[in-house]
């Protein structure tokens, strides 16, 4: 019977305690006769599935049976059961059963139960009969019954003990020798079962360990990536902050000084003086003017003050115009949707991506036009930079070659990712290039011009 089980069992719920039901609880059940039955139950899909293995009712032997409720729960929870089986103790009292059945799940269970006085109907009948036969037969009969009880209980108790020991130690089940009867069969089946269970336990443990290692590796990778991102974000924001400060400083000091110096030279040159000196002063003034222009170019390259003073769109417009003017490209800025305020990180990052994209257009595209679109959605903002230049065949992002020589596109993508956004490159040779960035609008974005 048990040999039919294909899958090695993984767990055994054991209920070896003999149950002593108070006989007085049920009217009509009196006497001290024990009825014994072995109950082997296999758990399948949450309900008890099995066949009757041994029964005091021979008609029920090997009949398919399904029992859920109490026993099933008990097995699932792995605790000894001490309750009445509704089928046996409800309407019709019947015999105890032993169940065994095909195992369809890796989690079968075995229940061994010594029931007492539950299916006492035959014994009660017998008792009545005995009373009529005569008191002299009673002791004899009792001795006979007692012996037969022992012959069944003993092996079960031993088997139970062995199973318990195996459970506790984790060692293979040492089956006592029982002979070739049903209990002996059962014991062998149990020991095969147990051996297979041990194997499968070991296998599971191996799998678990491998899985754990993988999870740990994966987590380490993840956290390295997160750390890299966090570091990059900090480096970039520190860099931006420094650039902003230097640009401000240049603007407020050097550039102002040069403007003051120029004014001073001009004042001086209004005094009556020798023509030669006047000419020298004019040169000096022009040089100062040029230095002033240079200082301003440097500070604007460092960080456009418009971005901080006026916000993202004016800065975009300003930069586009500046580049278009210098490079003789026609640029156009389109704004779609309801303009939403961008937080500082988003506006600086998008601006830098835009700068890089525009620089690529200037350096590589030979474009006549560049169309810049900023589209505000409900919770995202999209920046598109489209040129009508020569286009190119984009390499795999992050490929060795791409990383070696060309940092522009990678940097743009990195920055977009720092915003939890995306960057797409739509380019083909001869068909222009489009860079498309989408960044989420943060919930509490506030435009904060300084």
């Amino acid at each position: 019977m048990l040999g039919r089980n294909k899958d090695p069992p993984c767990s055994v719920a054991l209920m070896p305690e003999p149950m002593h039901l108070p006989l007085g609880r049920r009217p009509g059940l009196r006497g001290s006769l024990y009825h014994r039955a072995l109950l082997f139950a296999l758990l399948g899909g949450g309900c008890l599935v099995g066949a009757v293995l041994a029964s005091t009712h021979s008609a029920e032997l090997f009949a398919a049976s399904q029992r859920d409720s109490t026993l099933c729960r008990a097995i699932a929870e792995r605790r000894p059961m001490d309750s009445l089986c509704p089928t046996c103790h409800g309407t019709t009292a019947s015999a105890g059963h032993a169940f065994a059945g095909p195992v369809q799940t890796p989690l079968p269970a075995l229940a061994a139960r010594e029931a007492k006085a539950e299916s006492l109907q035959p014994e009660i009948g017998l008792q009545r009969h005995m009373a009529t036969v005569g008191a002299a037969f009673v002791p004899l009969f009792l001795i006979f019954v007692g012996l037969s009880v022992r012959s069944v209980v003993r092996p079960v108790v031993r088997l139970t003990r062995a199973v318990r020991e195996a459970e506790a130690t984790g060692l293979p089940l040492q089956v006592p020798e029982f002979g070739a009867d049903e209990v002996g069969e059962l014991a062998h089946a149990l020991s095969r079962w147990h051996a297979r269970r041990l194997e499968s336990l070991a296998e599971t443990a191996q799998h678990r360990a491998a899985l754990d290692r993988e999870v740990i590796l994966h987590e380490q990778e993840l956290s390295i990536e997160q750390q890299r991102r966090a570091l990059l974000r900090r480096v970039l924001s520190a860099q931006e902050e420094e650039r902003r400060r230097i640009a401000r400083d240049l603007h407020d000091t050097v550039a102002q000084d040069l403007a003051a110096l120029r004014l001073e030279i001009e004042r001086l040159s209004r005094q009556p003086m020798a023509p030669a000196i006047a000419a020298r002063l004019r040169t000096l003034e022009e040089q100062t003017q040029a230095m002033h222009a240079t200082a301003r170019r440097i500070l604007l390259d460092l960080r456009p003050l418009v971005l901080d003073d006026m916000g993202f769109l004016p800065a975009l417009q300003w930069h586009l115009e500046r580049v278009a003017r210098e490079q003789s490209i026609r640029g156009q800025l389109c704004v779609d949707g309801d303009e939403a305020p961008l937080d500082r990180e988003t506006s600086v990052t998008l601006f830098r991506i835009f700068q890089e994209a525009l620089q690529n257009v200037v350096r590589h595209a030979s474009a006549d036009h560049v169309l810049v679109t900023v589209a505000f959605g409900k919770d995202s903002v999209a920046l598109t930079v489209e040129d009508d230049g020569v286009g190119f065949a984009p390499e795999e992002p992050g490929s060795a070659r791409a990383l070696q020589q060309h940092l522009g596109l990678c940097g743009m993508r990195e920055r977009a990712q720092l915003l939890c956004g995306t960057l797409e490159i739509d380019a083909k040779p001869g068909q222009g290039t489009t860079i498309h960035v989408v960044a989420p609008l943060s919930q509490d974005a506030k435009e904060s011009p300084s």
Partner: protein
Amino acid sequence: MNPIRVLLADDHTVLRLGLRAFLEEQTSLAVRVVGEASGGQEAVALAQSLHPDVLMLDLSMPGMGGLEATIELRRLEPRLRILILTQHAEAIYMRRLLEAGANGYLLKSARGDELLCALRAVAEGGTYMEPTLAGQLMAHPEHSGDDTATSAEEAYARLTQRERQVLKLIAEGMSNKEIASALDVALKTVMTHRVNLMDKLDIHNHARLVQFSIKVGLLPMA
């Protein structure tokens, strides 16, 4: 003629002193510097107590900057003339300041005669715009909201046949590349039409292009 009474506001002391000396030395315009401020707050206070004709105001100053001071003074001293004197050579700043109520915008890199010219213009009730920046402003005028139906028709009349075709396809939601292959022309051609027509219509927004196309009957009503 009474001299123009000027209040100078700039946090850069050397520049402020140089400016004062320059204004007092020159002879072509009657100017009297009545006070100096080194920040926006001080400028607002002095403008209220000294009642100068013209405030020459720097933009970037610690604390209250020139833009805020302009907005504040427009409210408090409606008759005060404000001439911005700044290093910010970007048209966008000039636009913002003029919108906020400044009367003139001049760069610190300007020569002395330009400075006097600006001062005179502003004092006489005119507006002075830095010439190079004014040019940029003209090139990219701020669109002034939805135009009336008649001007939409007029603007539409200025478009070429090809531009109208392109406009229709843009309004229908096609990308530039799609339009190029639909019309079987180069991408550059489409871009030229696109930029031209948007400039002609002075519409730089997709939704408004669609509205416009519906208004002139290029697109059916949605």
